[in-house]
């Protein structure tokens, strides 16, 4: 069901943990739906110098969190904002269709963490250019029913 890359990131997650004094924190998902991702960022001179994640969810959710954090580490906030769920899924050598929402959560988690940083610094939050049409597993206030 899962690619070797997904299993590698699930079995050996990169950047797992918490940054206690994070500059930005983003949380997405819903325990009712079975997925929650929390992304922590440390930002210096507009560059993400440290990133950690906590995830409650399936193998794809853990692997997506791990891969997404790898992909944004060392990037500027603008570059990190552009990392799409598709890019995360491709880097994982694909996800089953039923699990693509996990990569969406990773993208959203990063966006939330970046906007949390921006708001804390008195900046306007960035607006999603292509908001995902979430029928499932997208927002904290949505139910799981499809």
């Amino acid at each position: 069901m899962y690619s070797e890359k997904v299993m590698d990131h699930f079995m050996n997650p990169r950047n797992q943990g918490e940054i206690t004094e994070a500059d930005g924190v983003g949380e997405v998902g819903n325990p009712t739906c079975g997925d929650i991702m929390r992304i922590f960022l440390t930002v210096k001179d507009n560059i993400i110098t440290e990133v950690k994640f906590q995830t409650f969810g399936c193998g794809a959710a853990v692997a997506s969190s791990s891969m997404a954090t790898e992909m944004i580490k060392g990037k500027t906030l603008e570059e990190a904002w552009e990392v799409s769920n598709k890019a995360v899924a491709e880097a994982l050598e694909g996800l089953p269709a039923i699990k693509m929402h996990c990569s969406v959560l990773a993208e959203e988690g990063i966006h939330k963490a970046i906007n949390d940083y921006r708001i804390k610094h008195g900046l306007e939050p960035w607006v999603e250019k292509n908001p995902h049409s979430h029928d499932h597993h997208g927002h904290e206030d949505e139910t799981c029913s499809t």
Partner: protein
Amino acid sequence: MTAERIVYMDHSATTATDPAVVDAMIPWFSKGYGNPSSLYRIARESKTAVEKARSQVATALGAQPDEIYFTSGGTEADNWAIKGIAFANRKKGNHIITSAIEHHAVLHTCEYLEKQGFSVTYLPVDETGQVRISDLKDAITDQTILVTIMFANNEIGTIEPIAEIGKICRERGVYFHTDAVQAIGNVAIDVVAMQIDLLSLSAHKFYGPKGIGALYIRKSVRIDNLLHGGGQEKRKRAGTENIPGIVGLGLAIERAIARMDEQNKRVSALRDRMLDGILKNIPNTRLNGHPKERLPGNLNVSFDFIEGESMLLLLDHFGICASTGSACTSGSLEPSHVLLATGLPAETAHGSLRLTLGAENTDEDVDYVLEQLQKVVIRLREMSPLYADHKKRSCNV
């Protein structure tokens, strides 16, 4: 690198075919290939083998051989029982009663019948997964033609009060079907004493082959055919008989009944020791299903703050085969309908684990699973934001 050791604890999904059963089946693939509908000797031998198996199944259920019909498995048997009763008795009424925790072979069949104009009542269950007799009594109307309630639940192992349900149905003149796929070989069944009109079973749940099952239909029950074609199975179930499968089913059920008491005693002791170990060593954990009225090998436990699929992947890494619920729903994102029906919150249902023990499991298996499971739960909780929040709350109290 994955573990070389394999500990199979998913016997509710399927069982390994008993080698004695395989041996009994093999000749019927090669020398005994005659079609039992033909007239020559090798065909008659096939026919004799089918009738022997029919007697073996009947004996196991306390039924008569001519009340046993072979099917392709439990799903076909459930479909035949429910659709067959519904369509044959439509003039009498259009109401069917089932429970909220049935297998999808029953639930989806009932949903199909709703689209055909039938009305279905889905009885709730209590927190242990049992149907309340008072709810059943209240639900039966003069339009009710069928009650279909499973004998034992495939996820949480709860055994339903079948004899009581049978008594009520007989008194009210309503047919009673039970999906006994999980119960055969684990629970003593007597269709006459329990007043069961139709019963479904499947061989691969009791160390028989896959792709073969049976439906018991009490004599005089009015039922339509599901499959139409040739005149096999007394013109009730068309299709050339699966002779090796039928032979395997017959022997498997005979052997399962013969060793049932001894195996139940051994397996339930292993199961209880595992439960004690889990509850003692892993906090924030609970047993799902009935504490006593449950299948001997079934253990269904929820672990707070973690998700089931991740647990399964890590257990698989250690060579442990388990399930988060029904194997049929492993492609679904929704939490188990059974656990939700018992009142479990969705987030807890997501963290459920089903371990079903069977013939080959040992004390060493239990020790190994306990050791690895504890590691897996700790590892996933360390990753979980829900557990991080829980720890912070605990520190602040």
